[in-house]
């Protein structure tokens, strides 16, 4: 046993030691790429690539690095990537790139041709976040300067890391994206990115989801819808759940503490049905009404109402994706593939269509774990 552990440890060390390429180059002789935006070029069949390069010349003393934006057009991504050396004079260093932004136009035409290089090249990393720009071009987004970080791509990466507190956009890294492109029972998606303008300061804001069918973008869903979509995919780690009061007005905010979603394909009356059961632990975080909730009964009522609303919303987004896009971003196909391999063989050929007609049942349960610092609502006299 001990020998096996040691052997594993040794192979781990060897594994580390042989990664990376051993080309000698000083850090000051490379241009570190922070992020990249891909647009269509001006002439037909051309691509335009915008790279955000960390500028190490600036800010030598205190805060490290400003940035430089370079745009170049060409026929293939690699041609452009090498072409940029003629501008910078330094080799581009892709390993620290954090974000790749595709324009909607490029996404709708098909992404395989633009991301293959990124996936294939030895210097690029597959843990880069992928985005689809809701603005006209990806260049606009990548050229922004952000509030928190001076480098947009790093700010975007930071946003994605804290996205779990919001859950209004899926977090997609490029390896995951390519994995979904290749899977027959699940469709790919990517977060949408906007420019949010406030006091004449432009910020990039991530909200909503771009839905892909095969490698082409077919549509979008909003940030709010994305949240319920993530519920169905069991990818919720946090965020806010709003609940209406008796009159149908939004009155409660529940903080999602944890969520567990179980999806099960079953045969009912000769028809395939997906049963989705969600169980969400929440904390009561905001009450905008004097309505009583501090006794067991009112808590149960609120839990029930929240569960019902959640259930409806999840179902509604599933129906919408089924009807409008025929794209199984929920991964139901993969699930059937796993649980019912025989059935999958029959349906996989025409899965897009089968998915649209799939019967889905949602059952949601919300459990209020705490009520914050106070147990009562603010009462007026």
């Amino acid at each position: 046993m001990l020998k096996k552990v040691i052997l594993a440890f040794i192979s781990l060390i060897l594994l580390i030691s042989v990664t990376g390429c051993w080309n000698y180059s000083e850090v000051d002789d490379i241009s570190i790429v922070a992020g990249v935006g891909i647009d269509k070029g001006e002439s037909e069949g051309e691509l335009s690539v915008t790279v955000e390069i960390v500028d190490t010349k600036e800010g030598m003393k205190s805060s490290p690095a400003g940035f430089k934006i370079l745009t170049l057009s060409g026929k293939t991504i690699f041609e452009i990537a090498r072409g940029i050396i003629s501008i910078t004079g330094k080799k581009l260093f892709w390993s620290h790139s954090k974000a790749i932004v595709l324009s909607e136009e490029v996404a709708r035409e098909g992404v395989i041709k633009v991301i293959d290089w990124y996936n294939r090249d030895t210097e690029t990393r597959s843990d880069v976040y992928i985005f689809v720009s809701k603005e006209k071009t990806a260049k606009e987004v990548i050229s922004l300067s952000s509030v928190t970080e001076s480098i947009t791509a790093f700010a975007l990466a930071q946003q994605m890391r804290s996205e779990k507190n919001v859950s209004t956009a899926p977090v997609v890294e490029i390896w995951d994206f390519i994995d979904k492109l290749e899977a027959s029972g699940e469709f790919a998606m990517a977060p949408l990115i906007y420019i949010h303008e406030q006091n004449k300061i432009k910020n990039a804001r991530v909200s909503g989801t771009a839905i892909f069918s095969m490698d082409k973008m077919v549509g979008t869903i909003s940030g709010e819808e994305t949240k319920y979509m993530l519920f169905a995919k069991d990818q919720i780690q946090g965020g806010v759940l709003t609940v209406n009061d008796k009159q149908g007005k939004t009155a409660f905010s529940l903080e999602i503490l944890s969520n567990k979603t179980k999806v099960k394909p079953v045969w009912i009356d000769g028809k395939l049905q997906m049963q989705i059961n969600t169980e969400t632990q929440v904390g009561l975080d905001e009450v905008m009404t004097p309505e009583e909730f501090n006794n067991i009964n009112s808590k149960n009522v609120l839990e029930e109402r929240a569960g019902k609303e959640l259930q409806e919303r999840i179902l509604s987004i599933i129906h919408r994706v089924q009807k409008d896009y025929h794209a199984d971003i929920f991964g139901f196909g993969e699930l059937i593939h796993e649980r019912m391999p025989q059935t999958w063989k029959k349906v996989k050929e025409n899965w897009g269509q089968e998915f649209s007609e799939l019967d889905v049942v949602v059952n949601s349960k919300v459990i209020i774990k705490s009520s914050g610092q106070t147990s009562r609502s603010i009462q007026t006299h």
Partner: protein
Amino acid sequence: MEEQTAGGNRKDSQQNTTSGQTPSTSLDEMMNLFRQIFKDDGTLRIRVLNNEGSEILRFGLVNVDGMVDKHMIQEGVIKPLMAFDFTRMEYGNTAELMEKIRTQVINVTDVVTSTDLNEMISAIIAGKTLLLLDGYAGVLTIGAQGWDKKAITEPVTEKSVYGPREGFTESLIVNLTQIRRRVQDSDLKFIFSKIGSRSNTQICICYMESLASPSIVKELQDRLRQVDIDLVLDTAYLSELIRDEPFSPFEMTGSTERPDSLVSKMMEGRVALLIEGSPYAMTVPYLFVENFQASSDYYINYYFGSFNRMLRMVGAFLSISIPALYVALVTFSQEMIPTQLLLSIATSRVAVPFPTVVEAVFMLTIFEILREAGERIPTYIGQAISIVGALVLGQAAVEARLVSAPMIIVVGLTGIMTLLNSRLTGPLIIVRALLLCASFMLGIYGYFLGMLGLVIHLMSLRSFGVSYMLGIGSIRPQDIKDTAIRAPWWHMHLRPAMIGARNRKRKGSNKIERRP
């Protein structure tokens, strides 16, 4: 104490002067002979005495000035000889008389009869006093040496906040008493011999008879016998001559100036070698882990002791790795550095004219220069000066953009880590340079290749037949209780098997009853 004939150190010079000569019965001839042998040696003192009562009895005293306890000679030899009433004594010949003087007249502990001229000469050189008697072809050798000795002081190189503060001195006999005071057991053996064909330095092999392996004792004696050198000033001379693997940068024999540390090593079955004139005792066999053991580990709480020891081990590892890894990461594997760190390294590297490896070599050399300079300065200010020097120099170098700021951190860390293990400083510098070289040429791959080479080298070393390091396969839990951690005493029942295999029980297994 047992006197052994020293091997290897044939006294060629003295044999030439005394060859073919035998002690004469005439006092005057004998005195002339000594005068001739010690020609041009102004320290030789010869004195002739007569007894009050019987004036025919003529005595001669020969010794070397400065090495004799004059008071003892005066009270124990001269006074009794002059005052003794020889008329009451009955004796047949001068030999009988000499024997009676030895047993009845002389008031000194260490008196032996000698008839060999070579023996007499070495006795004079060693500070003993010869008593000659006219008409007898022999002498009494009186061991009344006395010279100024340094007092027992705190060890300089192995300071410890806790535990005993005594250190060895330059006097062999004082050192041996320090050992004996700590282990009052007849099992403790001291074997004396002489080494150095001209210096005739007294050395002492010291061990616990029932614990030390006889083959190691014999091997040490055999190796010492083969030593043929004119002068031995310190155990380091002998260590270098008799050690295993003479080309390895790592120490293959232990060296300590703490009696407590030496005794504890002997209690694990090690054999010690002490020499006259050096406060450093040598111990064999030596294991790699002893580089990290400090005596204070045993005098403080075992959690803290273990923590300190692990710090030292990590320090040794980092001090060879940090510069090599930094160079490998910054010049080859930039993708492995966290982005923010890479950016700050990149910004500080801007406008630095030299490649990273040149920076590293440059700064590491400067650090070593400062360290050496600090050592040469005779007071403890030395270290402060070297640190201040490094800081000021480092600061200025960064501002002048000769080196980048991260490099200063790398070199500073490396330096501090090296100071954690003062005993390993030498080997660490060499290994660090080799690893740096490998990293510069092959990147991370080169670093690991170098590390692999280092491990293979360490694993292949043997000190007096004992492996320097243990392989994974030969580790036994009981043997590693005093390695990376220092296990509590109530847990260390046995001595490590590699050295102390003869008598493994260290402590009984009974539980100490504690009543609250």
